[in-house]
């Protein structure tokens, strides 16, 4: 064996040992947490023959806030999504899986919205539709009650076209992440200033129509270390009371409890898998940078058990980026971090590759995660795995 090959062999062996060491130490760390996420069962929503089960922009669970609601029972959980194929808003009773309501929203329906970036019902007569650049308040008949233009002269930004980036509607204020037109800059050599990093989250008062931008993107970008577009999306979820929300960013180890436009509490919800995300380079396509790296995605709050679940998006192997099987080349596998009411991390679990957060929600202390494998092999139903966080039994 030549010197060159001996040296290469030794280098590869050393790198492999280091990698194995890292993997083993991460696995060990995961084992040390006090809780685990246990698959307790499966749940399914039936679909008719003209409805496909991939959501158009938004899906989730809602509960009517009106005791005299004309359609939805007060205090009951409903699963909802907008069908990609029919453009209908479909609502199902979560307890029975029965479809109890449908409203055509795109195409030739009573109202024509497209694209729908997000959809938030509060009750049958109070439903917010985000369809850039408008925020529209409608009722269950599709009648438009208010139409607010979200474009502002001082800030350029769009609503985020992703199903897992959820806005919240707290009191009369819509709070939503926006996609900045400046980040990352087209020319990656350009340095942004602090001014450009302010305003990651848009606040729109539905009554007064007042708009404002609050919260900052990370100041790490001042150094010119840019990430792909998807890494800048601020994600939100309602927290304990109606006045607070949890804010997270794909690149940030922290989560933030926000109230009235200000950060009330900041805490760590860090994955064991990565410490930082390498910056994008001019040679790498934006979407490829997102796919080959770790990052955080959505988060959910289980009010019954006072647990925050944070989704960690795992990398796709570079060999699979052009795989014509879209389930491999588009869907990043996920891990779930669980944080308790003292903001302590109690679990991090890598989920089997069939579970994904394209559709995910919490109801009655259980985390529902879309089962893509079952949903694609049986397209007349949407399938979910139902998970519960449990104390780890140590033998």
């Amino acid at each position, binding site marked *: 064996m030549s010197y060159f090959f001996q040296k290469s062999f030794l280098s590869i062996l050393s790198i492999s040992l280091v990698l194995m060491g890292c993997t083993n130490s991460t696995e060990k760390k995961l084992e040390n947490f006090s809780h685990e996420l246990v698959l307790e069962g499966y749940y399914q929503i039936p679909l008719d023959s003209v409805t496909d089960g*991939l959501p158009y*922009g938004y899906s989730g669970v809602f509960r009517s806030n009106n005791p005299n609601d004309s359609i939805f029972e007060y205090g009951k959980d409903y699963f909802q999504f907008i069908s990609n194929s029919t453009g209908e808003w479909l609502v199902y009773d979560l307890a029975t899986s029965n479809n109890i309501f449908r409203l055509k929203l795109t195409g030739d329906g009573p109202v024509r919205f497209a694209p729908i970036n997000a959809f938030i019902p509060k009750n049958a007569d109070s439903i917010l539709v985000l369809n*850039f650049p408008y925020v529209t308040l409608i009722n269950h008949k599709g009648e438009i009650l208010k139409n607010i233009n979200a474009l502002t002269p001082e800030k350029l930004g769009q*609503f985020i*076209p992703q199903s897992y980036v959820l806005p919240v509607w707290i009191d009369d204020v819509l709070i939503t992440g926006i996609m900045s037109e400046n980040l990352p800059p087209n020319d990656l050599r350009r340095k942004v200033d602090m001014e450009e990093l302010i305003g990651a989250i848009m606040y729109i008062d539905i009554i007064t129509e007042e708009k404002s931008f609050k919260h900052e993107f990370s100041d790490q970008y001042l150094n010119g270390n840019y990430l792909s*577009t998807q890494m800048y999306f601020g994600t939100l979820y309602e927290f304990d009371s109606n006045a607070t929300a949890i804010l997270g960013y794909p690149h940030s180890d922290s989560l933030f409890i926000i109230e009235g436009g200000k950060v009330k509490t900041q805490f760590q919800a860090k994955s064991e898998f990565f410490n930082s995300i390498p910056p994008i380079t001019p040679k790498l*396509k934006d979407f490829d940078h997102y796919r080959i790296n770790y990052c955080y995605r959505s988060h959910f709050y289980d009010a019954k058990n006072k647990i925050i679940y944070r989704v960690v998006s795992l990398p796709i192997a570079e060999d699979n980026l052009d795989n*014509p099987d*879209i389930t491999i080349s588009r869907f990043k596998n996920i891990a779930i971090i669980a944080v308790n009411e003292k903001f302590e991390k109690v679990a991090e679990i890598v989920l089997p590759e069939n579970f994904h957060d394209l559709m995910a929600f919490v109801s009655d202390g259980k985390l529902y995660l879309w089962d893509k494998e079952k949903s694609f092999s049986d397209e007349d139903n949407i399938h979910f795995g139902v998970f519960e966080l449990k104390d780890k039994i140590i033998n």
Partner: protein
Amino acid sequence: MVKRFLVFNIFLTLLCGCENKKHDNFYEALTQINPEPNPPDNAFYFIMPDLGCSGCIYQAMELYKKHALREDVYIIFTSYISKKKLDLEIALFPHLADNIFFDAKNVMVEKEILAYYPVLLAVEDGKIIFMRDMQPTDEVVLEEFKVLLEP
């Protein structure tokens, strides 16, 4: 001077190599989707992912709809994940089949033509003169394509 000239030539060769690869990949993929022996010398293609940036797909679809009845405008639906949705869409468009292609095997993805965003592509005299991803924050791509489409 000679060194500079050589570097410039190498750069040009590499650039041409990339362009040729794109060209070949597109036509290889197109042949697999539509076995028509003679693709048109002048054409506009909207290559649309089924699963991708919904806002971008909407914007591209709005432009396509304005020109859908033109003989030189084609649309290729690709990046399919749902067989049910593919079947529903094929059933919707049988009368327009001449200019609408369904890439059921996702060859456009395999050949690296499309990843997540719609791709707008223009062919003039048999050569690809425009081929860009339509990203949500990049209005310029749509405007430049419009100029070619609506001179």
